[in-house]
């Protein structure tokens, strides 16, 4: 297991370093000169050269990359060129918000998805299975913004239960933000639910057909005992990987949902940074998302290893 963990960790580090090169490279081939953007078109060549020197932009790219990476690792993520705020403060603030939203969505769709998937597999080809499959497929097919708008229409316009906008103030506590988190969380959960259901259903059907489940039944075990002790642990292996890897997307990829609800998460910050060509902000947010994805995938591998002795004890 130690070998397994170390190898995975090394892969995470490698992923992050390669991504940092891509992020740095991409932000440097973006059209537009930083000095011109900061000083304006009327600035003299001399002033621009001075600023470049001041910012270290006249150095070779490799040296620039090295100092950028070491600053980043030390926690100095620079200052936003569009708002003048400290990039680190803003980004971490948004990361916290994204974490709250991810948690709410996660708690909504993972247990429900596993439950419905297992039920669908258990009652395979029955009416229950058909309904679960069709409804969940419909939600996969619906674009996120359609689901979101539909939820707003239902819970705000018609029922007046929940606020349509989730634009919480910076630093709002989880309890304070909770009402604002329900609708965006639900919208994300509905889209992801189908994936979890389908993975669980497929895995469970496969497991139900194995010899060892037959062995378990023929030992005279009760159905719940067979399901919980012998079926689920094995059938959830593929689901665990999908779900854990999906955490990365929940934290950094919800650009559309966050935009529709006006929720100040990491995804919307990326969008903002790109629209403003705010290089330090782009670099910080994308690097953060890379790290989240890498760690989420590492977690998926480790959980998989924990559940699967064939990998753990190899």
């Amino acid at each position, binding site marked *: 297991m130690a070998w397994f963990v170390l190898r995975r960790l090394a892969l995470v580090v490698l992923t992050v370093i390669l991504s940092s090169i891509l992020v740095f490279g991409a932000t440097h081939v973006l059209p537009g000169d930083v000095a011109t953007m900061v000083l304006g078109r009327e600035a003299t060549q001399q002033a621009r050269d001075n600023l470049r020197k001041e910012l270290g932009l006249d150095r070779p790219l490799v040296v620039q990359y090295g100092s950028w990476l070491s600053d980043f690792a030390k926690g100095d993520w620079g200052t936003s060129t569009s708002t003048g705020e400290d990039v680190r403060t803003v980004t971490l603030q948004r990361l916290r918000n994204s974490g709250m939203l991810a948690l709410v969505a996660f708690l909504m769709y993972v247990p429900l998805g596993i439950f419905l998937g297992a039920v669908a597999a258990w009652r395979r080809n029955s009416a229950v299975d058909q309904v679960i499959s069709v409804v969940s497929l419909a939600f996969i097919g619906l674009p996120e913004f359609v689901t979101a708008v539909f939820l707003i229409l239902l819970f705000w316009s018609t029922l007046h239960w929940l606020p349509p906008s989730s634009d919480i103030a910076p630093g709002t506590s989880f309890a304070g933000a909770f009402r604002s988190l329900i609708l965006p969380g639900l919208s994300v959960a509905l889209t992801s639910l189908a994936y979890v259901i389908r993975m669980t259903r497929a895995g469970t059907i496969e497991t139900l057909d194995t010899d060892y489940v037959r062995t378990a039944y*023929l030992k005279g075990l009760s159905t719940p005992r067979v399901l919980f002790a012998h079926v689920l642990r094995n059938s959830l292996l593929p689901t665990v990987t999908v779900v854990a890897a999906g955490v990365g997307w929940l934290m950094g990829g919800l650009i559309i949902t966050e935009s529709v609800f006006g929720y100040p998460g990491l995804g919307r910050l990326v969008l903002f940074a790109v629209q403003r060509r705010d290089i330090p902000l782009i670099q910080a947010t994308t690097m953060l998302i890379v790290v989240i994805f890498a760690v989420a995938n590492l977690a998926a591998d480790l959980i998989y290893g924990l559940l*699967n002795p064939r990998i753990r*004890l190899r």
Partner: protein
Amino acid sequence: MSPALDIRHLTVVYRTERGPLEAVRDASLRIEPGQTMGLVGESGSGKTTLALAALGYLPAGGQVIAGEALIGGVDMTSLSRAGRRRMWGSQVALVSQNPQNAFNPSMPLGRQLDEVGRRRLRLSRGDARRTTLAMLEKVAMPDAQGVVTRYPHQLSGGMLQRCALAMALMADPRVLILDEPTTALDVTTQATILDLLEQLKSEMDSALLYITHNLGVVAQVCDRVSVMLRGEIVEEASVDRLFAHPSHAYTAKLLAAVPRFDPDAPPPPGQGDEGASAPGAQPPAGAGPQPAGAHFLELRDLVKQFPGGEGLHLFRRRPQLRAVDHVSLWAARGTTLGLVGESGSGKTTLAQLVVGLKQPDMGEVDMAGERLPGLAGSRRRPILRQIQMVFQNPDASLNPRHTVGQAIGRPLRLLQGMDRGAAHAEAARLLEAVRLPTGYLDRYPGELSGGEIQRVAIARALAARPQLLVCDEPVSSLDVSVQGALLDLFKRVQLDEGLAYLFISHDLAAVQTLSHRIAVMYLGALMEYGEAARVLRPPYHPYTEALVSAIPTPDPAAVHEAVLRLRGGPSNPADVPSGCRFHTRCPRFLGDICRQQEPPWREGDGDHHVYCHIPLEELLALQKRPEPPAAGAPPSAEAQEV
């Protein structure tokens, strides 16, 4: 006494897309307590369906439409699911074919066995574990304390099957159903499991239903036998009666198909008349020793290692697992070199080195005087054509989306440059060569039986007009009756086409029918090799001796002779024992000399080589069977010749 299992006029139907299919028709079967009934038939004869119906565990679509199955007087076919559940485990238990699939892969074995005690017998945690350990002792499980903490993938098939037996017997069921319990195991492991069953039988009064396609196995463990053909039981008799006077023609056919090990059987044709069967540039190879380098196929000092070991190896070298350890062998043109050993002995790796699927770390493969590059990718096209392979699992070795004609036609067009028409005609000829109707050209592998697919695989290999056919356990996954026919086919094809075979199997009886020369491998190294007739009769290497005595004898009278068994399970290839690598399991273990020193190669007549500390004469004396007329014959090689 009332029977433990009483199946009366049972008919089972499967609903299929093409209408109902009768899998079992009007089958009746009775087993008294303490008795063992063999249920014998080919795949598809309905044996397993009958057993599952008796268990009340038919798969979806299966339905009992007539008859009943009484266990201790209770009819399983009329019980509710809850009622059947009360019977399962306590009244009736099952041991299934593939032990590796029969256990939950993510739960330690101890907990899986405890479940029976905890959930069925309502024992406390501690009592359940004590019962588990006691049962494991009963099935002669070495290191029971260690086994309970291990996961299924950490145990060999034989050990797992012992666990399965312990689990099935834990609640002392009235009926124990064994569905091909040894078919997936090595012959040596099968022998030890059969010994165990025989012993358990005498200790308990459960009724056993033993399902198998191999009549040889039945002779050892069963009291009575039922023979099943196309869903019907066609004959039922005591074992002795059945083997002596089979009353149904089908039973006689099954009996004839059991591979019999007979060292006095005539050697396969082809040996010695090499010039006639394959005119070529090679000088004719006589039976006597030849100068090195003159053989058609020559493997010299082959070594193949794989990285092995567990955990991190930051500062130490990762241990190397030697799958093939300095192996040298040869075969003459148009003859068969048989390669025998248990799983893990390195047979398959050796085959892969010959075919060029793996690069040897050391040593050479020569064919027809030419040194072959290690990997197939760097071999010349004619060489690729000349070496073909037939794999173990027929279902997986043909593309399911290609018709038989396409599968055979492809190498014809690719390697021989035939056009579509010529390829079609040649494919038809090849089908005839493997005794299949030419109408099969348009069929898909899914429509054929396992034996037929293997025939197609042979035809496909022949299409390249090879000179060497490497066959890796080509008959092991097939029914015994099909095996016999295929072995005959291999024999005829060799004569017709002048092919050399490298024929790999764990079953000495199968190897014997084909081989001119035989090599026995254990843990990557050769133990014995030489002319087939020499290897197959004493003096044997002790390992060969164990392989020979593991072959199930289809003769109830011969079963109770003294038999020789290997100690323990196969060793770990990553941790080869010191001295003689076979010493940990050797039935003729001498002592420190075996532990500390590598044995010498002892040479006998006819290019016969044995890797053992015991001199050949002593081996012969130990192994010579007391034959009634020649009981006092001196133990010498000459005496054996007569």
